[in-house]
């Protein structure tokens, strides 16, 4: 149990306390909230506000074993339906409920970062992959027999399908622990910043902001303490590259963080690990401990300018928006994960109002490799604007699902060939908030100059229904909007209804025009990236797959298709029929 010292209430402990209670009691009760509020000197409702923001905190019992099924479209396409049915049968209650014996709670959740091994689920945050109805049956009976999920869960596969030739690979090759840290001894922080600027490394979290520049800004801002945060929230549906990096090479992340901390002068490091990856927490903490043992973490770390730096892991609790860096900072501060306005940036005033650098896992992992291979070698890889390699998480309708480390500049068609996409119709590029690509894009190149990608690649073939896919994406944004600004909160909800109309076949030209106009309003007035990007794929798809939507476009009739005269008179016909036949 986390100890709270009476005189020093640090709100950044709040989420950890909530997790602890959730774990032990399987829900957070009224009285718990009252106690927490007292400890943290907050109003009860403020605590309630924080905990109801996060999907994994429950106000009522969620079972001794809490099962989260991934409801992403990839999971649905891979047979989530039958898995759900199997679970429902075994535990005797429908999805979203607690079994009568209070043993099992069955819930759905957004993408859990296992898209290449779906259907998958988390049971007490332990992963179970490639599920079949039989496997579900075994799992439940094992749990009933008292076996612990952690004892028999699956270890998610890394499925690294492709890397460039060994001398051109960056991430997935043998790495000798501590090797990049020798750099510290002979270089000043400024040297490292210069080097990273020279490398043109840009943020792999999706925004591609130049990393060196970010570090420089943070370095320039004077403060008594600075923070470095690793963004391991990986929430974009379809991406799982950060998970694989954390599984395969946590040491490069820690070294990347030590180097980044040296560069910016940060003395506290935090890994914001998404709740869905809780099973990776212990391993990361083990690596941290070993670096501490060798004095690469802690006080007085050996370097040209010796420094203090330590890292701990903060666990998220199920909110996609917490991947947005300012929301993430609020989340660590024990607040609701609402993004800030962009008046000041985190490098100026971030975590606890101090200069803060937030970097993605992949960005940080690249740093030691750049030092190891030398910046010139790195610059010789990839393209002019985007040197180096990129990790892509591939899922959906293709033969070789998994992780691809590709050199920037790869031809898209070639990429489709390697992943074994046989009949690709729509490629969802960079996740639901990215872009929908069609045949027309297949001759482009994957690079900063042309098709840039944060990491998620979902392939949909000819057999898939595009409006259904779009509906899933829209559902995701409706669920995950933080709710603070109306264009995103209600705008996405209204777009979702339009998609419903398409799916039930009653949309018309006016609806299609509305979608376009409303999307523009949502895009230009939303407060953060979620709202600004949420309607991208919908509009892309409408533009790129005119055949799918032409029947709606063509319908200019002022009569409502949702009204069917046949259906409305069916009752009458039946009644009259029955009565007249009675009297014949």
């Amino acid at each position, binding site marked *: 149990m986390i100890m709270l010292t009476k005189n020093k209430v640090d709100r950044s402990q709040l989420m950890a306390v909530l997790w602890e209670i959730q774990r032990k009691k399987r829900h957070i009760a009224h009285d718990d909230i009252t106690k927490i509020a007292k400890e943290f*000197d*907050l*109003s*009860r*409702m*403020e605590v*309630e*506000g924080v905990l*109801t*923001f996060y999907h994994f905190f429950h106000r009522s019992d969620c079972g001794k074993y809490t099962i989260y099924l991934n409801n992403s479209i990839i999971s649905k396409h891979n047979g989530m339906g039958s898995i759900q049915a199997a679970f429902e049968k075994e535990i005797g209650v429908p999805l979203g409920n607690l079994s009568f014996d209070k043993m099992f709670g069955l819930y759905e959740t957004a993408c859990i970062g296992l898209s290449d091994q779906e259907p998958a689920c988390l049971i007490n945050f332990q992963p179970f992959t490639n599920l079949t109805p039989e496997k579900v049956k075994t799992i439940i009976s094992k749990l009933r027999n008292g076996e612990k999920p952690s004892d028999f869960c699956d270890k998610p596969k890394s499925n690294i399908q492709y890397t460039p030739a060994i001398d051109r690979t960056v991430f997935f090759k043998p790495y000798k622990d501590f090797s990049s840290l020798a750099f510290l001894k002979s270089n000043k922080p400024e040297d490292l910043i210069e080097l990273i600027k020279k490398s043109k490394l840009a943020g792999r979290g999706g925004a591609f902001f130049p990393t060196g520049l970010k570090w420089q800004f943070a370095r320039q801002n004077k403060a008594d303490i600075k923070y470095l945060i690793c963004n391991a929230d990986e929430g974009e549906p379809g991406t799982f590259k950060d998970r694989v990096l954390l599984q395969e090479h946590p040491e490069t992340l820690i070294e990347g963080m030590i180097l980044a901390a040296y560069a910016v002068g940060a003395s506290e490091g935090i890994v914001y690990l998404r709740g869905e990856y809780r099973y990776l927490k212990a391993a990361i903490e083990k690596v941290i401990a070993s670096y501490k043992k060798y004095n690469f973490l802690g006080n007085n770390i050996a370097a040209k300018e010796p420094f203090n730096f330590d890292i701990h892991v903060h666990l998220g609790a199920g*909110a996609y928006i917490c991947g947005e860096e300012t929301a993430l900072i609020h989340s660590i501060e024990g607040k*609701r994960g*609402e993004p*800030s*306005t*962009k*008046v*000041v940036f985190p490098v100026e005033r971030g975590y606890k109002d101090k200069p803060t650098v937030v970097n993605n896992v992949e960005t940080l992992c690249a740093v030691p490799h750049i030092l190891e291979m030398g910046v010139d070698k790195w610059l010789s890889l990839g393209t002019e604007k985007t040197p180096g390699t990129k990790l892509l998480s591939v899922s959906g309708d293709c033969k070789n699902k998994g992780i691809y480390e590709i050199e920037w500049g790869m031809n898209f068609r070639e990429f489709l060939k390697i992943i074994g996409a046989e009949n690709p119709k729509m490629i969802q590029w960079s996740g639901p908030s990215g872009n929908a690509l069609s045949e027309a894009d297949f001759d482009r190149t994957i690079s900063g100059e042309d098709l840039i990608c944060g990491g998620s690649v979902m392939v949909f073939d000819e057999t898939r229904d595009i409006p259904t896919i779009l509906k899933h994406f829209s559902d995701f944004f*409706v*669920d*995950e*909007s*933080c*709710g*603070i*600004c*109306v*264009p995103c*909160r*209600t*705008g996405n*909800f*209204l777009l979702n*209804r339009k998609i419903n109309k398409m799916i039930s076949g009653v949309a018309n030209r*006016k609806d299609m025009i*509305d979608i376009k106009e*409303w999307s523009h*309003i949502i895009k*230009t*007035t*939303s*407060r953060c990236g979620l709202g600004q990007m949420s309607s991208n794929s919908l509009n892309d798809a409408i533009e790129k797959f005119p055949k799918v939507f032409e029947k709606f476009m063509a319908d200019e009739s*002022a*009569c*409502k298709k*949702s*009204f069917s*005269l046949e*259906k*409305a*008179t*069916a*009752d*009458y*016909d039946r*009644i*009259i029929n029955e*009565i*007249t036949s009675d*009297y014949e």
Partner: protein
Amino acid sequence: MNNLINLTIDGKKIQAEKGKNLVDVAKDNGVDIPTLCYFKSINPTLGTCRICTVKLNGRYTTSCTTHVTEGMDIEVNTPELLDNRKAIIEMLYAEGNHFCPTCEKSGNCEMQSHAYNMGLTVTRYPHAFSEKTIDFAPERMIMESNRCILCKRCVEEIKTKDGKSVFSFIKRGVNTRVQIDYKEERKLSEEEALHAMDICPVGAILIKGIANEKPFGERKYDFLNKNVHTSLNNNKIELKEGEKFVVATTSLAGCFGCHMSLLDIDTDLIDMLEIVEFNKSPLTDIKNFSKQCHVGLIEGGCANDENVHVLKDFREKCDILISFGECAIMGGIPAMRNFVPLQECLEEAYLNGLTSELGADIIPAHEDIPKLLDNVYPCNEVVKIDYYIPGCPPNAQHIWKVVKSILLGEEIPIAHDEFKYD
């Protein structure tokens, strides 16, 4: 003063104090950027409502979060940005449940005032019917979530003396709402509680026992921008020399009350006939359309298949279709049968009712008798309706005024006593 900087707002060169908030700079220079969440004492600014969205050097951003610096090029009142602003207000109306005439804050409500200024008569969005609650439990306050626009003013501004929040956001996404902490609320002084009600830009925070203390005319926004002329974007109908406007009317499942009201136009009828000719209508007894009409007026909803055919015919033959009266708009009295299965309705009417003959065993059915629909449908569920004139029945002068305004492409001036029935 050497900290003056130069910037342009809508092409106009302006000097302002460096770092000053753009909303204030614009205001000082006669450009009014509407805001809802912006509140002087809250820093950093909230930036939640988004209606002050402008373009800064070509990029969209909110004015309230912008501090002016040298060389800024700001667009405020482009058609696109004006429409964005209106759209957001419309979205707020569609998302909540706002009934201004019964709201304690009416006339003192910032959102209502913006809506009037923007000429908002109806929202482009369908109503969201989101689940909202009214919380009467706090000692002194009422939290009316139906009206809350989640601007966050109360959350940031109202704290107890020991620094605790009284109002908090709970849940997220479309379910986000403001919840009052009962215990903390009790700690507020009378003055602080009133302050909370006062800073809420809408009527979401109410103090029990305090309502409408000021009569119409003395409220904050009653006469604000009284002379501002807002365009309603009506498209004018072009007539050829010597032509009159062609109007058709019909009564579907209604009581003919709306038509009776129509006749109450009295002597104005003579004026009307100067510019209008009636085509298919019970008034002319013309049974079939003989030409395309400019406007069709529909009374009553659809209760049987004949109503549906007539309505669809009207939709085709009339350029503009207007539902007038409650039955056309929402089904009205006939729609009360929607709560009873059709079979029971028929049996009650023809077999079991008090007025049917003893031993009655026939429900009339013949191909000439229209088939009853399973439910009574409002007209807009069957065809697209362009305008609605509410009322049961709508007032005669009012009907005529609306129709005339639509025909002539003029603005519809609605006097207070025309929509006030108490």
